[in-house]
């Protein structure tokens, strides 16, 4: 019955990241710190990143939220580590497109993250999935354009 549809949302990889989050915690000092929340539902992320020479050297997150938001944060940090800021932002845009149900560029490999494509069929949950990515974009943006 309905669990067939639910399986499109709650893929095994997502549940694995939810249960065993990667990069959970906080980078002690010298990093970028971003706090963001989703005011409609109370999901909250505390993201710290170490960016050097335009490369994301390290990223960690802490926070509270549903399986989708926490798994997405785990996957996001895993993916952007070692990538250039440019690539990280490009992936974030691709992720937003994926949430809108758009086809991805052939040459862009989102890895585990593609498991989240099913979220596009659950409009109420898209904001959960994009929270971590929004935080990351805000962080690198403030690094490039400090005010």
């Amino acid at each position, binding site marked *: *019955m*309905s*669990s067939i*549809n*639910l399986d499109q*949302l*709650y893929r*095994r990889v997502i*549940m694995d990241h*939810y*249960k065993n989050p990667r990069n959970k915690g906080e980078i002690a000092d010298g990093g970028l710190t971003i706090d963001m929340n989703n005011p*409609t*539902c*109370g*999901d*909250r992320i505390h993201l710290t990143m170490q960016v050097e020479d335009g490369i994301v050297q390290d990223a960690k997150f802490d926070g*509270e*939220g*549903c*399986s*989708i938001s926490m798994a997405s944060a785990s996957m996001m940090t895993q993916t952007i580590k070692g990538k250039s800021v440019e690539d990280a932002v490009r992936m974030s845009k691709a992720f937003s497109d994926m949430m809108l149900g758009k086809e991805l560029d052939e040459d862009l490999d989102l890895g585990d993250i593609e498991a989240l494509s099913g979220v596009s069929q*659950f409009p*109420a*949950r898209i904001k*959960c999935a994009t929270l971590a990515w929004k935080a990351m974009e805000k962080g690198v943006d403030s690094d490039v354009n400090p005010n």
Partner: protein
Amino acid sequence: MITKDIKKRFPILDQQVNGHPLVYLDSGATSQKPDVVIEAIKRYYENDNSNVHRGVHTLGNRATDEYEGARQKVADFINASSVQEVIFTRGTTTSINTVAQSYGRANVSEGDEIVITMMEHHSNIIPWQQLAKETGATLKYVDLEDDGTLSLDKVEETITDKTKIVSVMYVSNVLGTKNPVKEIAEIAHRHGAVMVVDGAQAAPHLKVDVQDLDCDFFAFSGHKMCGPTGIGVLYGKKALLEDMEPVEFGGEMIDFVGLYESTWKELPWKFEGGTPIIAGAIGLGAAIDFLQEIGLDNIDRHEKHLAAYAMEKMSEIDGLTIYGPADPDLRAGIVTFNLDGVHPHDVATVLDMNGIAVRAGHHCAQPLMKRLGATATARASFYVYNTEEDVDRLADGLRIAKEYFSDVIH
């Protein structure tokens, strides 16, 4: 007795959602609308639509009569002593903001106190935070008891002779608690403060008597009581309203306009600047007729029964926590809960896939969530059209959610 037949009066409920018959358990956010309300709005637009208090033409007269007729219905519904005490607003939020900006600015100054409680909805917190910041007054909170009720002793301790405004919700939108607002009003008055009641979750569900409560202001929203969105009410005691300045200025609310000075219409119109929500008021009038036909006491009893039944069914589920008073007599038809190890969003999504609509999140009560030690919760809220069968479906849905997640997580 409220029977299952009442569901048929709500056309929206007759549909399948994600392959299952819809069970709507989110009336705390907004209620569904019965046929008579939808028809009243349609009839108005098809026959009588016109601006009010203006033209001399026939449609204008009809629209004005219906609009003012709705005001009379509201006055009777809450037992106001005069129809002049009923101001139409956009909803509870606008009503409370009107009190804060008009009465508050004129009567609160540095060193004064405003008292609210830890269980308030954001719309009964932020207007007072803003007023406190503007005036230099202190905002004080009455904490809640561990069982989700308010203690009158704590209320006594918090309200002092410096307190100018006390504002408390009648029924909690999260805990379902019915608060002793009449007793709190008495304490407030003893200290010379006015009593504001957030009646958003009370007016739809129980008999409200503003004279018996002896509150000074009472705010509620039409959309939570079978009426349309965009219309609400601010009740105020006439003597207070008469001394208060309007917060919105423009058409409809004026008596005489000069180049540099203007005067206001009498009550209640001085608080209704601009073209009012005419169809909304007429829809609310129809909703009140509908509720009174069923009887508010019957509605109250029906919901209390459903809440008790739900608490019984849900307590059979391992790892399910219910917030708020354990005694159904202390609460209205709202049951807020969490399922161990499963985030409320995930619970709500599983329920939605089974055709059951509940709310998940912080319910516009972040300070309360913090106090409860929860970042988010799920909430089932009941109304006239809900049945024991709906509760059974909820319990089944929760079991499915639990099973589904125990499979994937553990």
